[in-house]
């Protein structure tokens, strides 16, 4: 495995391999000295063209826990603001000989492009509204921890599917892990022909009780301006997951950051059914596993990790 660009590239065995690796790293996070030398001397570059708190910091923590050197490169305050193209930026930064570039951009396919322009491995930390593969991996990890196997589980993804890279990566990941996926939201926020991804589509929460897992998406304020929904009030009235809609036994997930009182009511966020905190915690170990899989096998120092994704040049 050279890059992690999308969940679509992975098969079930590859996902399980990463998650099993992540499991083996949980012990590191519980040590007093939260560090192992697995990636000592490796250079990881975080290249973020969009604001990010948890993704960037968890990649940084993951890299440091494996003793890699990390440089954070934010687009603001850099040559990017002077009009440097993505290609030039990547080629310039590649001159620093990074072993891995973790990239987030607002543009679909940008991570794939970067992979063509650099010798470093590339991890997609979000490319526009396309995919966010490590989010889906950590979600599967956290969910496996709670319910065991995903085989046969019914997972509802509720909210703004149209603008969500998390939704797309999660649909692929959950389906590959044997779950059934239903996306639910206002018709304005569900892409046309979404069923082609293999999921079901619902426009109301009437059958939400059939779900084993409810995955709420973040509802962004800016969606009001384009009339995707008439008001947050109406959205919340129809789609908010609250104590009356969340059935006992259902697991509640959310990729964060949560808009309290919009997509989720306060009482469910704080209920034991929610595993939102576990998702965040899983972020570090899953990203450690991804970094390890991509880097430990490269070069002569470590035994080669099994290849889990072929990426076209």
């Amino acid at each position, binding site marked *: 495995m050279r890059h992690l660009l999308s969940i679509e590239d992975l098969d079930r065995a590859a996902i399980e391999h990463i998650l099993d690796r992540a499991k083996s790293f949980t012990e590191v996070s519980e040590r007093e000295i939260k560090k192992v030398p697995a990636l000592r001397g490796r250079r990881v570059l975080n290249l973020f063209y969009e604001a990010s708190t948890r993704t960037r910091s968890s990649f940084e923590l993951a890299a440091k826990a494996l003793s890699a050197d990390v440089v954070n490169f934010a687009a603001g305050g850099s040559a990017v603001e002077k009009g440097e*193209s*993505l*290609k030039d930026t990547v080629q310039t930064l590649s001159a620093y000989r990074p072993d891995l570039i973790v990239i987030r*951009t607002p*543009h*679909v*396919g*940008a991570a*794939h*492009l970067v992979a063509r322009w650099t010798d470093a491995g590339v991890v997609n930390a979000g490319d*526009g*509204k*396309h*995919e966010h593969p490590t989010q889906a991996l950590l979600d599967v990890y956290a969910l496996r921890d709670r319910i065991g196997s995903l085989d046969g589980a019914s997972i509802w993804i509720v909210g703004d599917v149209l603008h969500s*890279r998390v939704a*797309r990566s999660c649909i692929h990941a959950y389906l590959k892990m044997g779950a059934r996926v239903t996306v639910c939201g206002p018709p304005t926020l569900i*892409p*046309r*022909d*979404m069923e*082609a*991804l293999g999921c079901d589509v619902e426009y109301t929460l009437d059958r939400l009780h059939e779900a084993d897992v409810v995955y709420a998406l973040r509802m962004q304020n800016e969606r009001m301006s384009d009339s995707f929904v008439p008001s947050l009030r109406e959205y919340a009235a129809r789609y908010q997951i609250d104590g009356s809609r969340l059935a006992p036994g259902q697991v509640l997930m959310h990729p964060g950051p949560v808009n309290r009182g919009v997509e989720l009511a306060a009482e469910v966020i704080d209920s034991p059914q929610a595993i939102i905190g576990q998702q965040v915690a899983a972020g570090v170990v899953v990203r450690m596993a991804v970094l390890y899989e991509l880097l430990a096998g490269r070069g002569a120092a470590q035994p080669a990790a099994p290849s889990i994704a072929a990426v*076209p040049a």
Partner: protein
Amino acid sequence: MTLDARPAAPANLLIRGAYVLDPRAGIDAVLDVLVRGGEIAELGSDLTAPDDVEVVDGEGRHLFPGFVDPHVHLRTPGQEHKETLESGTRAAAAGGYVTVVAMPNTEPVVDSASVLLSLREQARREARVPVGFVAAVTRGLGGEALTEMAELRDAGALGFTDDGKPVHRAGILRKALQYQRLAGGVLCLHEEDPTLSGRGVMHEGAVSARLGLAGIPSVSESTLIARDAALAGYEDGRIHIQHLSARESVEAVAAAKARGVRITAEASPHHLTLTDQALLEQLDTRLKMNPPLRAEEDRDALVTGLREGTIDCIATDHAPHAREEKEVPFEEAPMGTTGLETAFAALYTELVLPGVLPLALVVDKLSAGATLLDLPVPAIERGRPADLCLVDLDAEWEAGEHGYESRADNCCFAGRTLRGRVVATVAAGAVAYRERVLA
């Protein structure tokens, strides 16, 4: 004469033994074609070559009437880093085209007689094949105020278009249709309702849902065609629909034709041969154009529309862009693919060879665009100017990443193996292109 080209010596050629196919003239036979002083002097068997005439071996090759493209972007003036009149018409000649018609969305926009006249003068210095120009419908393509259409016609505008944008206000288009009675010239329409296409970058459907890219729905095109056909019918105006891409659009044009509206339509080689599935193989910015590559049912409807005559002609919408402009993420890249140098080969490979369309139909539609602009359609007939292209149908070649006559290499067919290669083009009686062959 409203076409311009740099002066070139009239050709004296005897093309011997080529398979001559001119569907309109009803020629479909192996013949010798004698060109003297740039005119087709004789057609027959075993013609003898006069002393001053070069003999071209046509054996095993096909000779067609040269192609006419009613829709290209030559980027001049103002964007010569993408294409020039010289490079664009060289690309045309290499693709078998003997006439191309340039769109006015340049910098400045071709919206006044002075810009048009200076452009025509430049064409008389640079153009390798005759080039014609259509002028803008509205000043600065702003969609608000009509250009001086009558004066532009006097200055040589073949027609009018705001191509790249729709004429969004129905009231402005209606006035242009009324004014057409005075000025003449067809109105060529880019049909796209921007309130539906929004920030879309590809066809809206299963592929855009998968990629998370904003979609351009088919109805953004067909609804505006329906509106404009209604206006043209009401004003008895003449409109031409550019680059049809969707099944619904073919239906809208067919319905208007059935009602007697004076409407014609074009389709591009890429819309006739590719679909949005190509974007799943690689999210390549060369596959980004407006209108976008659509679904298989759309492509199929376009092919049927071409076969049945709903679509009148093939136009490339040759849209060159500089490499650095296309070497960016998909959503950031400008719309457009080049097309002049691959048009025939793409259509021959994808539609003629598999038996979907007859060769004669494709050859006919590749020059039929002349009609809508009131230009003579090239014909292989005695006494006509030699507008010819000689093609090796067996030649297999790979559309390259680079190496085009065009300044640009953003060709959506790059990397594909194509059959059929233009080996020579004679445009307006002069040799415009000859394949370079290394011995």
